[in-house]
């Protein structure tokens, strides 16, 4: 009973928010265009949050995703600026993300540094590297190939299903793919289930013969990869790269995962619930802006709503 309440508490809040905006913004909120817009706006955050879920499943963290996103955007943009073909830039950026993630993994799993400290350190390092190779500048304009930034503007036209003039943005599709892969990996592969086992009881996992170190290493690599993809999406969307642009992603991604955790049975992170968390944050921003709520009040409201959702979940859990 209360278990259901706890699980559905945040979901109920989510639905309440949607109903509230639909009521107050009858013309503009629940329109296909607005909804598709929201998914596009959230696509970068969704990618980071979904891949962040992979490490959080093991009770780990990655604070460096934001600066990794910036760094990978910068790497791609610098290569574009040096007239390398697009695929080189993309590959390099993704490679940097994977390597950076694995570096986090080495620190956390092989050396045994607490994830919080290790990724706090690499946050600084990645961000410094982004500044260093870009010389602190924003790279934009002709340096960014239009095929690259065009990707973020394009989409699959939805005329066929009766939505004239609306298209499903490539960014949304990319995010959907990443989420689907993360979901499948975590929920339906031995690899994913092992990560959950590590999160539940690392010692038991170790005693059962799981290669805890290797698994953690890989998981961090995947999170770094996700951050790099998000960084590329971000750079395409803003048609430019600067060394701080990803920094807002980290706290939001963690908040989304935590919001999601209030929805799951044992309070463990799960990708689809993370997605609900992401949508909740994005819809609040969209709806409150449309209602012309002052940006500062919006900030306070978002904070309070997140706290309340988690508080309701915690309280009903405690009463269980």
């Amino acid at each position, binding site marked *: 009973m209360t278990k259901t309440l706890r699980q559905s508490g945040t979901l109920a809040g989510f639905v309440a928010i949607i109903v509230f905006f639909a009521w107050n913004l009858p013309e503009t909120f629940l329109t296909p*265009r607005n909804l598709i817009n929201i998914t596009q706006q959230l696509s970068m955050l969704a990618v980071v949050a979904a891949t962040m879920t992979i490490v959080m499943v093991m009770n780990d963290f990655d604070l460096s995703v934001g600066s990794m996103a910036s760094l990978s955007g910068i790497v791609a943009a610098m290569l574009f600026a040096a007239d390398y073909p697009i695929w080189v830039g993309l590959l390099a950026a993704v490679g940097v993300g994977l390597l950076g993630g694995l570096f986090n993994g080495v620190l956390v799993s092989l050396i045994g540094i607490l994830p919080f400290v290790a990724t706090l350190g690499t946050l600084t390092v990645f961000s410094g590297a982004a500044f260093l190779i870009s010389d602190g500048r*924003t790279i934009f304009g002709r340096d960014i190939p239009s095929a690259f930034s065009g990707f973020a*503007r394009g989409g699959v036209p939805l005329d066929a299903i009766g939505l004239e003039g609306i298209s499903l943005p490539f960014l949304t599709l990319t995010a959907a793919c990443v989420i689907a892969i993360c979901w499948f990996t975590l929920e339906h592969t031995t690899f994913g289930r092992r990560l959950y086992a590590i999160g539940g009881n690392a010692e038991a996992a170790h005693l059962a013969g799981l290669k805890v170190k290797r698994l953690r290493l890989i998981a961090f690599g995947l999170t770094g990869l996700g951050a790099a993809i998000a960084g590329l999406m971000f750079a395409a969307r*803003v048609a430019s790269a600067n060394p701080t642009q990803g920094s807002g992603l980290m706290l939001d991604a963690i908040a989304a995962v935590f919001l999601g955790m209030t929805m799951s049975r044992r309070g463990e992170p799960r990708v689809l619930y993370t997605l609900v968390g992401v949508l909740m944050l994005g819809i609040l921003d969209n709806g409150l*802006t449309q209602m*012309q709520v002052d940006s500062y009040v919006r900030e306070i409201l978002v904070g309070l709503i997140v706290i309340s959702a988690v508080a309701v979940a915690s309280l009903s859990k405690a009463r269980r």
Partner: protein
Amino acid sequence: QNVAVITPYLAQPGTQAYVEGFEASAAERGWDVNVVDTAGDVAAAIARIEDAVVQGVDAIVINVDPAQVTAGLLAAADAGIPVVGMDAGSDPLVAVNVTSNGYAMAAETSVYLANRIDGEGAVVMFVFDAFPPVQLRGVVADAVFGNFPDIEVLDRVTPDVSDGGIADSRARMEAILAANPEPGSIAGVWAAWDQPALGALQAIEDAGRADEGIVITGIDANPQARDAIAMGGNFEASIAQDFTGIGAAAAQVVEGLLAGEDQRESVIFVPTQFVTVANATE
């Protein structure tokens, strides 16, 4: 009329001033203005532009590099909503950009500094290249100092701005002063905006080196800087953008666009004012 003002930089005093100028002019015209700050997040600025388009505002005013928010501008263009830039940069998708001439401002302060130190000595520069409008100031100043053979740029410091820019600049300047203890070893401090200039001033005064004649210049002439300049100390000059003027001019442009007038110029420069001890309290 319903106008959205969207910026990631509202925490900057300058942005605030012209947003207020715009709001004042808009109020006179009876417009409904929604100011949206995305706290440094450019992608969120795109999102908020898209939201404003969905919401069906009559015009959008931005204070962010248009090249970075092209996605949002395209959405506005599709919906036929005019976009006006306040100190935003030129772009085909922006009907008019109302701004001060950043190149001229940086040139004026750096030339002032070079002349005050008689074209020789060591200069500390405070720059911030991540933000395009400030970055170009640094480029201009580099060029000016490079043209004086006896001026040596001692250090080109990028302070941490997450604390507002004063405290970290001050800590950096304290370290530089400590590294150069000889009186006269630092001739001037050129800052690309006022906060580092204020931090450097505090550092110099506290180190007891206020009487060495180190000349400091800033840009923006925010009230705290004006106070400091008016004291007649090391902080000698800054340059004031007419923020209220920019806001008012932007409002005027919006009004014209809404009335269906054609805009001939895509950039409108609002005059700046050089501020020294003589006119700081005006």
